[in-house]
């Protein structure tokens, strides 16, 4: 039911945020607070590793939408990687796969 957030910076403008747990209205505020600042540097690449996120709902979608808006505003980039198929499905249903750079762990599979 919790979410742990870990951020590393392999290179100056490249940050990798690794999430582990569930993204819902309880855990989302912390995620937003950690994620948004990473997108506010011009030329930054923010990679969010969702390989250990087994649950997300619309609160999580909202956070990634605001992060995406922030990248457009600041000239940075965001990639969502290793997304579980079930979580991907929510991005798909809501049409967000059209505008976000998403890579799933077992895309098409399950």
């Amino acid at each position, binding site marked *: *039911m919790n979410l742990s957030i870990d951020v590393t910076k392999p290179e100056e403008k490249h940050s990798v945020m690794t999430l582990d747990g569930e993204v*819902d209205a309880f855990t989302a505020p912390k995620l937003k607070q950690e994620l948004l600042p990473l997108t506010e540097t011009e030329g930054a690449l923010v990679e969010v590793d969702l390989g250990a996120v087994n649950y997300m*709902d*619309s*609160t999580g979608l909202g956070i990634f*939408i*605001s992060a995406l*808006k922030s990248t457009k505003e600041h000239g940075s980039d965001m990639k969502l990687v290793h997304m579980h198929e079930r979580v991907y499905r929510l991005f798909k249903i809501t049409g967000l796969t*059209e505008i976000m750079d998403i890579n799933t762990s077992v895309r098409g599979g399950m």
Partner: protein
Amino acid sequence: MVNAFDFIEVKVPAKPEYIGVVRLSISGIASRMGFNYEDIEDLKVAVSEAITNGVEHAYKSDEDGELTIGCGVYEDRLEIMVADHGGSFNLEAVKEEIGPYQQEDNVEELREGGFGLFLIDALMDKVEIKSEHGVIVLMTKYLHENEVGRDGDQVSTSQ
């Protein structure tokens, strides 16, 4: 679950920390009923959306609100009711603002909310919303016959 109808009721404070607790209870009920992995995940999201709305929109920030979750366990379906006693809202007006992202939308103007009710609708088989004294969301998910007793990690063919 021999009886035609079992009723489970859960009452929690309208606070974000209890959304996960209710989600866990619902997934327990659904798994006991024999829902498959995919349908359980859908149920978890739909219920969390309804509860999140109760937490975020029903009560004023200084109010100590409560949410009631009722589960009707039938042989062929799970009915879940999420009710608050907060303010009502204009469903027709809201309906015009929710739904999936449209290609034409400009990313800069993209809304960051408004996916909750849309997801409930997409993930459940039947949804009814009443907004008079507080809001009641009544949602149904059917247990497809071929799912009963199935292994949780098999792929569902029932969508």
